[in-house]
């Protein structure tokens, strides 16, 4: 038996009082949704400073629910969100089957192969599934699915946002340190492709092989490790588990900034965002979750808000109608990043500005001025229509 932990978020009865007032075309609509998470055992990392929050993603979904319920309370729209978290090694597809039987709207935080297994279930036909956890390109490419949208940015969007900034700064001579884990190798490949796309050179690479305790040794070991790298403007680090990168900065042979998985980095969201009303969202999140909002929380929040916005505008809980509206020109989501968010009609990826940040501030919001595109500048980031092998959207 898989261990399944269930938590139910009640629709906010408190808000019912608000619904007493007359609204436009009131029609009672009830939307049942499930947030399904495959727990993944986090690898051990050197530092104890930044543990992965247990409610990562879930807290974003719950805030998205509460933001959406407020609108619903004025319109007679009722939302319910069931959160199901499957322990490592547990049976995700069984949990997905049960979820789909109860609700045709499903948010999935799981590795790519599990997302595909869920989307391919017979019960998932006609359902609306949103991937909030996997940035793997293949889900937006040949392995895309017509019933599957993505609010988490494709990994390439993170890497390309960074490369746009490096190119605009003319910091085009880079070198790269690649971590030992498969996800480090994958992100390094994504960084290489992004660098090639935007004309940034990666002049040399080194594999990270240390197994010492760098909290003690970084100041001795890292200068030697980086001494034989060729002259460069920026040192890229591919360390997706957040393991060693923090000990590279300020310990390098040459005084150079770090970018990639640490230092200057592209991502879907960051606690340093405050413009475009973002501070309101950060405040709401922090007061509810008692921690800062992370990219996966934002992906889950936008997923909830996407469904809520569609239900608000077209007054239905029918997943196929919602999907059609979400992919239409009429859909515009306020994502607190300065531009309306929408979905790519060729692979279901949420089209969004990508912040490039350091630990203290927003450095740039990409796409930057000057990166032009025939339809929408945001499509300079990630798989564009001509490159995507996705055909499931019939577009």
């Amino acid at each position: 038996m898989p261990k399944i932990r269930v938590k139910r978020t009640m629709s906010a009865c408190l808000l019912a009082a608000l619904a007493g007032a007359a609204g436009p075309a009131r029609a009672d609509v009830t939307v049942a949704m499930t947030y399904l998470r495959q727990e993944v055992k986090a690898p051990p990392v050197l530092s104890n400073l930044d543990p992965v929050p247990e409610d990562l993603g879930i807290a974003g979904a719950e805030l998205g629910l509460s933001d959406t319920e407020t609108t619903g309370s004025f319109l007679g729209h009722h939302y319910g969100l069931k959160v199901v978290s499957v322990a490592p090694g547990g049976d995700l597809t069984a949990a997905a089957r049960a979820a789909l039987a109860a609700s045709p709207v499903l948010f999935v935080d799981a590795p790519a192969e599990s997302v595909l297994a869920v989307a391919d279930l017979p019960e998932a036909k006609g359902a609306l599934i949103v991937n909030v956890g996997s940035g793997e390109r293949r889900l937006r490419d040949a392995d895309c699915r017509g019933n599957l949208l993505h609010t988490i940015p494709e990994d390439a969007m993170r890497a390309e946002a960074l490369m746009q900034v490096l190119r605009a700064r003319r910091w085009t001579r880079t070198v790269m340190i690649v971590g030992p884990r498969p996800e480090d190798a994958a992100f390094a490949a994504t960084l290489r492709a992004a660098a090639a796309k935007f004309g940034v050179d990666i002049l040399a690479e080194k594999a990270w092989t240390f197994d010492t305790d760098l909290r003690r040794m970084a100041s001795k070991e890292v200068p030697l490790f980086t001494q034989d790298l060729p002259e460069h403007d920026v040192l890229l680090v591919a360390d997706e588990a957040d393991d060693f990168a923090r000990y590279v900065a300020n310990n390098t042979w040459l005084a150079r900034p770090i970018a990639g998985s640490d230092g200057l980095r592209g991502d879907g969201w960051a606690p340093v965002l405050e413009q475009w009303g973002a501070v309101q969202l950060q405040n709401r999140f922090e007061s509810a979750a008692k921690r800062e909002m992370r990219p996966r929380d934002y992906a889950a929040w936008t997923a909830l808000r996407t469904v809520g916005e569609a239900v608000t505008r077209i007054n239905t809980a029918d997943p196929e109608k919602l999907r059609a509206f979400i992919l239409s020109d009429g859909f515009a989501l306020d994502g607190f990043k300065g531009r309306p968010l929408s979905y790519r009609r060729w692979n279901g990826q949420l089209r969004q500005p990508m912040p490039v940040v350091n630990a203290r501030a927003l450095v740039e919001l990409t796409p930057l001025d000057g990166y032009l595109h025939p339809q929408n500048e945001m499509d300079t980031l990630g798989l564009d229509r001509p490159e995507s092998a996705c055909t499931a959207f019939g577009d």
Partner: protein
Amino acid sequence: MRRLHSFLIALPIGALPLAATAGEIWVTNEKDATISVIDTATLEVVRTIATGERPRGITFNSDHSRVYICASDSDAVEVMDPASGEILHELPSGEDPEQFVLAPDDKHLWIANEDDAVTTVVDVDAREVVAQINVGIEPEGMAVSADGKLVVTTSETTNMAHWIDTATMKIVANTLVDSRPRHAEFTSDGKELWVSSEIGGTVTVFDVATRSEKAKIRFALTGVRDDLIQPVGFEFTPDGTTAFIALGPANHVAVVDMKTFEVETYILVGRRVWHLAFSPDHSQLFTTNGISGDVTVVDVASREALKSIKVGRFPWGAATRP
């Protein structure tokens, strides 16, 4: 005498057409915690006044003897003597006040509390909260009808205009608008309510009697992507013929015919234009440009930008003092 003097000095420099009569534009600088006071005759900043943290909404009472300032991060509305620049007292405002309107009888201040999803009604004489009304998430735009009977709050995340009866202080209707509504105004005849939607990129015009949508104004600017056209603050000319609408990061103000709802022209101003205020004689329009940190002066008749005036960091609100 001082104003007359400055007026005379202004003339020789004067590529400027017909300087407006004396008056002041008060601009709140969100990230400087100050107000910049611009003389409408000389078009210079003549005073800088300290306020509470993150000043945004600003409004005068009808005889201009008091100015009210939303000091958002101080969680207070400050009441200032405009002559001395002295803060006389604070009003209880609820958390994070962003915008407000003063009822035509000068008695009640209606405040949008952005972080709290409520509209707070404050009796400015008794300095007491009279009512708090639950509205949608991130309330911002506030409008009051000329007869004082209706107040509208718009909520940015809920995407609605909430219509409040000022007699009962209860919501009587909620109407959906496009994404991220920012600003609302009743026309002076009370027949229309205009609401701007920043992310939706539209201005919705409601018929007040039926509370139904009467028109939707859209914008198009050569060389500017649609998603950067983000209408925020706007002002009507007193004759009710023309609306000036700030388009945020599109860095333009749209001039709209209020009968046909057609855009007549666009005026290039500073970066991220937020709010607007007319000079007392309505011959000039002043725009707060958040990112460029300046105010653009527009000649209303010719619809041309005349001058940029450097103010503090992130200028936001603007109000006129004759």
